[in-house]
């Protein structure tokens, strides 16, 4: 149906094409919002549906998304924090302005790069896995089989992934910041022989409580995006197994775009 409307736009004028594309994007957006509402609606049905049997899936998801990603997140965090600290201090130390490291660290790493880089890692590892797994389940008709047994796929398949990925992403963002602070200090020590007390003082002077709340909020929202968008794309796969990699690619692109968009919106709302 969507394909027919896209090919039909060839015969429309420019404003007509813009209008048609806008209508299409709005429909896609409403589909995703409806899906997100349906999944979050499971929360309100939990007293009746129960959670006992989904614990195993939630724990598996936390292990895969969170625990197994720790080394790579630590590596990205250490590398990015060390690079930023070395670049900033090598310039700032020439004019005796080392104190700027606190501002750069808090505004660039803790507020922005920490949640975004963590989200990129989680999208690459877990977002792709969720889209591919659910897409394959759909092609193998396992999702339809669940429905024939009276099992709600949103409750049995999507909800545990939503909880698992959200919790894991939030924890990874906190872990990213902790590793960044540690390796930032090591880099500062190597670059300008800064002491731990001075380094922490510079950061504490710039950091406010709201920074940690905002970082946590971003972690939560990014986790929800990374669980819901790939699940949506996996579940709308129909027909051939060749649709699974296409769904995975679409899920990754949409997740990345949404993560940057949401990050920008939150930063504007809280800091400007």
């Amino acid at each position, binding site marked *: 149906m969507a394909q027919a409307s896209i090919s039909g736009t060839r015969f429309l004028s420019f404003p007509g094409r813009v209008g048609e594309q806008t209508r299409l994007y709005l429909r896609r957006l409403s589909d995703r919002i409806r899906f997100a509402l349906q999944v979050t609606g499971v929360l309100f049905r939990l007293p009746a549906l129960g959670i006992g049997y989904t614990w195993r899936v939630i724990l598996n998801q936390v292990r895969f998304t969170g625990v197994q990603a720790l080394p790579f997140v630590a590596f990205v965090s250490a590398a990015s924090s060390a690079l930023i600290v070395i670049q900033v201090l090598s310039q700032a130390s020439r004019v005796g302005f080392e104190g700027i490291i606190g501002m750069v660290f808090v505004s660039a790493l803790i507020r922005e790069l920490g949640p975004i880089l963590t989200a990129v890692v989680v999208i690459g590892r877990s977002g792709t896995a969720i889209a591919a797994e659910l897409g394959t389940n759909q092609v193998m008709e*396992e999702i*339809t089989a669940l*429905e*024939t*047994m009276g*099992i709600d796929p949103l409750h049995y398949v999507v909800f545990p992934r939503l909880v698992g990925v959200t919790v894991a992403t939030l924890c990874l963002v906190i872990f990213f910041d902790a590793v960044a602070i540690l390796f930032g200090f090591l880099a500062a020590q190597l670059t300008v022989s800064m002491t731990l007390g001075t380094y922490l003082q510079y950061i504490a002077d710039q950091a406010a409580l709201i920074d940690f709340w905002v970082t946590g909020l971003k972690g939560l929202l990014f986790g929800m995006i990374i669980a819901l968008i790939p699940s949506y794309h996996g579940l709308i796969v129909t027909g051939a197994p060749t649709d699974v990699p296409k769904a995975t690619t679409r899920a990754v692109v949409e997740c990345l775009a949404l993560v940057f968009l949401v990050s920008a919106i939150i930063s504007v709302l809280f800091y400007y």
Partner: protein
Amino acid sequence: MSARINFQDVISNGGSLIAGKLALSCRGLTAFHDGVPLLRDFDLDLRTGEIVAIVIESEWGARYIPRMMNGIEVPEAGTIELFGTDITGLNERLRLALRHQVGYLFHNSGLIHNLTVWYNVALPALYHSRFSDLQGVSAWVDRLIARCGLERCRDLRPALLDEATRKRVALARAWVMAPPLLIFEDPLMDIDVGSGGELLDLAFGPSASGDDQDDPRPNSPAVLLTSQGLHEGLFRHVDRLIIVENADVIFADDPRKFDRRGKVFPRDVIESRGNELG
């Protein structure tokens, strides 16, 4: 909204089903696939204790009809009543809530590939009982696994099994909630004639021990199955045979009254060739 189900009630109700109760009823059912009619103005009443087979040439028809009866697909016209409730007008959540009373066997088994055979069989019972009676479910699943001869593969995943064994797992899963209605979606698809016969004997034949008290199969359920061909096993076990040709019913009666001469389904040709090669 589906509520937690007491599994002991499920087992005892399944063992004491009363034959003759209306389980499934449809009126004026009309369905198309890609513009091709599959069924036209189709009526059916299915009661507990009755086994009805719909034989239809179309592969898609053999899948689509049972899915309509279970509310997975929606017909173009007509009504379907499951246990007296019209499911064509219900939303998805309410249809889901009705389905624990229906045991469903998929044409491709429909097993969950990351679960072992045991968990595949147990899944509906674990889900609907909210893990509240693990011991009861576990003992019941063990009995079903033994009844279907699956003891040796209970800890294997479906990918390691042949299609005939997967069908037996799917059959055990369809029985696990001791449902009053069983729907088998083209169960003879993708398995050879011998395995098909064994599957039908397992599903509808006399109990293995000769003692019905020991048999974990639901007592007198209503059974609807579809097939693309006239398997010998259907003539042995089915109470009513419905043959659909070009979307119209051309025969609906006791299978023993059906004259097979001159009526060959594409699936029968494949099977007879398979027998010659075998």
